[in-house]
């Protein structure tokens, strides 16, 4: 069946992390031999050492190559190999039974589009045809939720034009040479053109070290800091008066709210000197152009909705929306049918949408809030649904796992998880496990056996980016189209996520909604507005960016109910929330739990919970490390490389310590997503309960952001307990590294 490709070089969009660099794949004898930097000088720096490790990942001996069916107890990691056809047949039959018994909403799906890349929103299409609104994704904690909240204020999620900017503001975001590499390169380009960089981060991060200004705010206080900036910008009249007068709504109410946050109060909340706050606000507002690029830090706080809205408001008030060097409101790519359309969101009935888990309490990124924008999105962007970064019509993960565990408000009994180690990717890992143990059917589609896949009934091997064709539009966040060419054939038993949904839909009787037999046919269909086929596009070019149009709002208005930038949000008001932004304190530290813990931190060698089994990457980062300030470490009698337990009222993480001057005193940084593939068969679910940060943060309602239901990952109380000995069962590499 598998045809061997000849020796060649092709262009591939790397999906090892979420940033999507285009690289060159070299193949030899039908195998990926190397992934190397681009030959275009403008793109050649956009590569990190994870990207060049692609051959080690794609050719890894542990890659799943055959569909597996569980034979032991759930989670026992015992399997029989079956054919792909048998797997699809049985999954369809068992899903049909669950739906017959509990209704279509009893299916929940969790994905990471960053990893799976070519679903073409067929997961949503399948769910909408079946009748389930319960789609969750890691993007609910990272970028997707930011997209949804940005839309509340001005109808779209802008992409920062960093390279052309004169002032770049990084709220805790720390792009480095080997993490978010293209963003790192854009910041360097801006700096070379004279841009100022302001970093707001408790740590002396890599970016803070070279910043023009660094504000070491207390973790989790982004909203308060932004309110302080607005206080200066409004009261010193540093805002763009024409823009505010013509294009915004609610300025007077905003001013009143901002005046509740005088600098002395903001200084007290954030721990940053009032004069420094004022000076940085002036630098930002006074720049010829300025941007606040998306940041994973503001995404994950108890006032996340307010803080994300405050970024939006700052962009608008300073006149930086849709200008060169500011924040670009791109819209849909005119040459390519977006995933927003392919998802068929119109098809899901209102009755089923109303059942979306979490939408009653935390609606910001659910259908309930986002559909209030539909007619305005259509007016400005030509289509009702703008599912930017796949993040705008999601169920709430905590509510979904709670329903899986408790069957309240209704049972969720089938869970499909694609390219996503769900067990460790959301808060409250213990509840996720409980929920998964209470399922009638779990299907995992993965490239490696993960702790989540170990809990499945069926594990289907996935393909990787060098094994499929694709054209990336960055999920409508940016405007360009980037080619990704199939370089080699996937393993015989592997399927793409597109094939999986296509085949299952055909088996379940709604195949007419999935008429495209191959990914190439989907790509041809998506390219119809351009008048080109995929083959024609890929023969001509490896990337195409439509020339930018600026200040489009002058003609169209904004895609909000008022057609203006809603400083006071009519949507939040209609949903019963405070329509103006505010700061809310996270849980306080105490004598028992004296440190502010921040989790969800990305390390250079890995993306999320991935790649721990890839030797060339693991050698660079053999073990999980907590970071502490030297004075905190001294108080606890801890030195570098000591083993400790970090405990919170919810759970504990075992890891080594690195003592770092760069840490803010009283803060502890925890890396994200640690498990031990080498412990498979020895420790429960391959050690996924030893060092995973997902056990630490509570997700009880009082710890969640009101509007989105986001947990407070950035600054919750914890304590450190030094261990007399290293934990049992660790490999030599972990102990030594």
């Amino acid at each position, binding site marked *: 069946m598998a045809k061997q490709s000849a020796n060649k070089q092709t262009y591939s969009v790397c999906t090892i992390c979420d940033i999507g660099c285009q690289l060159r794949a070299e193949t030899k004898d039908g195998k990926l031999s190397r992934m190397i*930097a681009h030959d*275009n*000088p*403008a793109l*050649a*720096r956009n*590569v*990190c*050492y994870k*990207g*060049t*490790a692609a051959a*080690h990942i794609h050719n890894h001996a542990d890659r799943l190559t055959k569909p597996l069916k569980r034979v032991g107890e759930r989670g026992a990691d015992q399997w029989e190999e079956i054919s792909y056809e048998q797997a699809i047949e049985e999954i369809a039959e068992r899903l049909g039974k669950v739906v017959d018994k509990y209704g279509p909403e009893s299916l929940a799906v969790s994905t990471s589009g960053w990893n799976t890349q070519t679903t073409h929103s067929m997961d949503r299409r399948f769910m909408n045809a079946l009748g389930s609104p319960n789609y969750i994704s890691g993007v609910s904690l990272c970028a997707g939720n930011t997209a949804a909240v940005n839309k509340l204020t001005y109808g779209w999620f802008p992409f920062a034009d960093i390279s*052309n900017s004169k002032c770049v503001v990084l709220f805790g975001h720390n792009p480095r*040479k*080997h993490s978010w590499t293209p963003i790192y390169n854009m910041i360097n380009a801006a700096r070379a053109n004279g841009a100022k960089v302001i970093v707001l981060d408790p740590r002396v991060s890599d970016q803070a070290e070279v910043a023009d200004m660094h504000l070491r705010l207390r973790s989790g206080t982004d909203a308060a800091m932004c309110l302080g900036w607005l206080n200066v910008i409004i009261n010193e009249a540093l805002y763009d008066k024409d823009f505010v007068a013509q294009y915004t709504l609610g300025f007077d109410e905003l001013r009143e709210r901002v005046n509740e946050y005088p600098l002395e109060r903001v200084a007290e909340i954030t721990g940053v000197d009032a004069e420094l706050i004022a000076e940085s606000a002036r630098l930002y507002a006074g720049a010829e152009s300025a941007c606040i690029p998306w940041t994973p830090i503001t995404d994950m706080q108890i006032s996340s909705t307010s803080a994300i809205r405050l970024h939006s408001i700052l962009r608008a008030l300073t006149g930086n929306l849709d*200008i*060169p060097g500011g924040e670009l409101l791109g819209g849909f790519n005119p040459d390519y049918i977006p995933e927003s359309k392919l998802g068929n969101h119109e098809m899901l009935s209102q009755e089923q949408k109303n059942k979306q888990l979490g939408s009653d309490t935390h609606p910001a990124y659910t259908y309930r809030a986002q559909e209030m924008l539909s007619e305005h999105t259509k007016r400005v962007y030509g289509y009702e649904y703008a599912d930017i970064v796949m993040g705008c019509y999601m169920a709430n993960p905590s509510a979904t796992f709670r329903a899986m565990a408790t069957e309240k408000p209704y049972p969720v009994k089938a869970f499909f998880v694609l390219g996503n180690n769900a067990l460790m990717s959301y808060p409250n890992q213990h509840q996720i496990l409980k929920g998964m143990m209470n399922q009638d059917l779990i299907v995992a589609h993965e490239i490696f056996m993960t702790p989540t896949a170990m809990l499945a009934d069926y594990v289907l091997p996935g393909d990787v980016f060098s094994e499929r064709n694709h054209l990336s539009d960055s999920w409508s966040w940016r405007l360009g189209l980037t080619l990704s060419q199939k370089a080699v054939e996937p393993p015989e038993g592997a399927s793409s996520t597109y094939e999986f949904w296509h085949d299952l839909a055909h088996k379940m009787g709604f195949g007419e909604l999935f008429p495209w037999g191959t990914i190439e046919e989907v790509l041809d269909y998506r390219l119809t507005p351009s008048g080109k086929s995929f083959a024609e596009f890929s*023969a*001509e*070019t*490896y*990337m*195409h*960016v*439509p*020339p*930018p149009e*600026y200040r489009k709002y002058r003609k169209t208005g904004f895609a909000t109910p008022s057609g203006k930038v809603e400083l006071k949000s009519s949507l939040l008001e209609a949903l019963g929330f405070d329509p103006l932004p505010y700061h809310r304190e996270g849980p306080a530290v105490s004598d028992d739990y004296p440190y502010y813990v921040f989790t969800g931190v990305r390390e250079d060698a890995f993306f999320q919970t991935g790649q721990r089994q890839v*030797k*060339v990457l693991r050698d660079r980062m053999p073990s999980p490390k907590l970071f502490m300030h030297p004075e905190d470490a001294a108080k606890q009698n801890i030195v570098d490389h000591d083993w400790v337990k970090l405990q919170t009222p919810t759970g504990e993480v075992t890891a080594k310590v690195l003592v770092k001057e760069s840490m803010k005193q009283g803060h502890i940084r925890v890396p994200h997503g640690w498990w031990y593939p080498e412990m498979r068969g020895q420790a429960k679910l391959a050690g996924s309960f030893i060092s995973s940060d997902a056990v630490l943060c509570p997700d009880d309602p009082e710890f969640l952001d009101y509007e989105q239901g986001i947990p407070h990952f950035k600054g919750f109380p914890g304590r450190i307990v030094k261990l007399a000995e290293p934990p049992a069962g660790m490999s030599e590499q972990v102990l030594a590294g």
Partner: protein
Amino acid sequence: MSLLKEWLGDNQQRLMTHLANRTFKKNPNLIDRAATGLLKKMIGEVPDDPELDHPE
């Protein structure tokens, strides 16, 4: 910002995008090659980076 300055700034960016699109061509003609040459001059050579290697 004056309208002229705005117009110049916007068009400079559009021009840069047209230029970049030319450098992305797989079968470049003379103008495309000139665009790539210009880009190379503007950006400079990107040296090999040993940090990207994975010696085993």
